[in-house]
C-alpha cells in the first residue's frame, strides 16, 4: 500500500480543513476505500477518518418526523434503528443487503453514496424517498438531492475538499404510501446486484396512485429514475396488468451495458421483473396497512 498521512478530526471544521489539503480521501467504513488504495485503484496521500466526529455517526429523529443519518453511521446501525426501520423500511432493509454482517458493521450509507457504484444498494430507496445530502466544505454547508449527486461510476458532485455530512429523510408521507427495493444477484449473499429497482407509491383517497418514484440500479452509469414508468402509474388504480406494464416501461428507461457480470439484455429483462415485483410488494404493504383496525 502507498504511504499516506492519517488524520482523525473530531469536528467537521477540522475535517474540512484536513480535506482541503489536496489528494485527501474521506474514510468512513473503509470497505471500499481500503481495498481500492491497497490495490492501487485509488490514490490517497491523506486519509481523513470521519468516524470520530459525533455528528457523522449519529442517527437522529428530526422535529418533523424525518431522520438525519450521519454519513458515517454504519449500515448495521441504520438497519437496527427501530424508528427508521418503522418509518422507512425500504431504507433499513436496503442497508442489510450491503455485503455480509462484517461489511454492514463497517460500511456506511455515506460511503455507499460517495463510492458512487451504479449498483450501490443503499441508494435507490434513498432517492425514492427524495433524501437530501448535507455537504460541508470550506465555504460552509449546502444541501443537494441525493439523486443529483451522481456523475458517473465512482464520481459524485462533491467538490474537492467537501465531505458528505449527513443524509436527510423528509417528514414521513401521509398514510397510504409504501416503498420497496429489490435487486438480483447471481448468488444469494455477498454479491453485487446486476440489476435493482426501488419503487415508492402513494395512493389518494380514491385508491388511485397519486405519486410514484421508480429508481433503477446497475443499469446505467449512475442510479437513474424510470420516468416513463412513473408517468404511466399516476392517476391509475394499481392492477397486476398496470404494474407489469410499468415494469416494461422501466426496462425501456434502463440504459444497461453488457459486462462480465451480465448482458445488457438480461439486465433489461430483470428491470421489468424487479420493478413489477417491487410495485406489487408496495401494493401488498398498502393492503396490509388498510386491513389494520
Amino acid at each position, binding site marked *: 500500500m502507498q504511504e499516506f498521512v492519517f488524520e482523525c478530526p473530531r469536528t467537521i471544521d477540522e475535517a474540512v480543513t484536513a480535506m482541503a489539503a489536496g489528494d485527501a480521501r474521506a474514510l468512513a467504513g473503509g470497505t471500499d476505500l481500503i481495498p481500492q488504495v491497497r490495490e492501487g485503484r485509488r490514490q490517497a496521500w491523506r486519509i481523513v477518518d470521519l468516524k470520530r466526529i459525533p455528528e457523522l455517526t449519529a442517527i437522529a429523529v428530526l422535529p418533523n418526523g424525518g431522520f438525519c443519518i450521519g454519513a458515517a453511521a454504519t449500515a448495521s446501525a441504520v438497519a437496527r434503528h427501530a424508528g427508521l426501520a418503522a418509518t422507512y423500511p425500504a431504507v433499513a432493509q436496503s442497508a442489510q443487503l450491503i455485503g455480509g*454482517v462484517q461489511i454492514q458493521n*463497517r460500511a456506511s450509507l455515506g460511503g455507499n453514496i460517495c463510492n458512487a457504484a451504479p449498483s450501490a444498494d443503499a441508494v435507490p430507496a434513498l432517492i425514492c424517498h427524495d433524501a437530501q445530502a448535507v455537504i460541508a466544505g470550506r465555504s460552509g454547508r449546502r444541501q443537494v438531492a441525493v439523486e443529483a449527486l451522481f456523475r458517473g461510476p465512482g464520481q459524485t458532485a462533491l467538490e474537492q475538499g467537501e465531505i458528505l455530512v449527513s443524509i436527510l429523510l423528509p417528514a414521513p408521507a401521509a398514510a397510504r404510501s409504501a416503498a420497496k427495493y429489490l435487486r438480483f444477484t447471481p448468488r444469494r449473499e*455477498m454479491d453485487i446486484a446486476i440489476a435493482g429497482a426501488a419503487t415508492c407509491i402513494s395512493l389518494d383517497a380514491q385508491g388511485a396512485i397519486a405519486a410514484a418514484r421508480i429508481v433503477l440500479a446497475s443499469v446505467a452509469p449512475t442510479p437513474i429514475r424510470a420516468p416513463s414508468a412513473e408517468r404511466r402509474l399516476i392517476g391509475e388504480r394499481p392492477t397486476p396488468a398496470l404494474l407489469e406494464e410499468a415494469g416494461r416501461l422501466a426496462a425501456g428507461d434502463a440504459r444497461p451495458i453488457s459486462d462480465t457480470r451480465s448482458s445488457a439484455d438480461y439486465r433489461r429483462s430483470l428491470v421489468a421483473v424487479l420493478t413489477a415485483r417491487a410495485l406489487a410488494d408496495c401494493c401488498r404493504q398498502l393492503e396490509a396497512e388498510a386491513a389494520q383496525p
Partner: protein
Amino acid sequence: MKTLVTCTVNGEERTVLADSRDTLLELLRERLRLTGTKEGCSNGNCGTCTVLMDGAPVNACLVLALEVPGCAITTIEGLSDGAALHPIQQALVDHGGTQCGFCTPGIVLSAKALLDANPRPTDADIRHAIAGNLCRCTGYGKIVEAIAAVAAAAAPER
C-alpha cells in the same frame, strides 16, 4: 509513518508501534503474533480474518490499525487458551464442522457475535450471520448444525 496504537486485545491493553498502512489484520498477526486470525482474500470478501471489534464482527483486513485506538478487539485466541475449547469450538469438533479449518476462527467469532445478540437463532439467522464467512470446503450444513446445537444447549426450549 509509525504511530503508537493502544487498544484492548482479548481483554489486555496493548500498545503497538504501527505503520499507517498496517491493517488491523497485520497489527494482530505481525506485530502481536496472534496468528489465529487468518488472512484469506485481503479484500473483504471471504471473512477468514473476522475478529470482534467492540463485540461486532468485522473483517480485520478492512480496518486500518490507526482506526482501532480505544477499541476492544477479540480474536480467536481470546476465546480459549487452547486447553479447554469454547463451546462453539467444541460443537464444531463434535459435529464435524471443520474440514481444512482455515475459515474456522472467523466462523467461530461470527457465531459468537450472533449468539451473544440472539441466543435462540433460527437456521436462517445462523446462515445470515455466517454469510460473510466463506468455507471453500463447503461444509456449511455441519457448521450450521454445530451453531444451532450450542444455542439449544445454552437456551433449551421451554
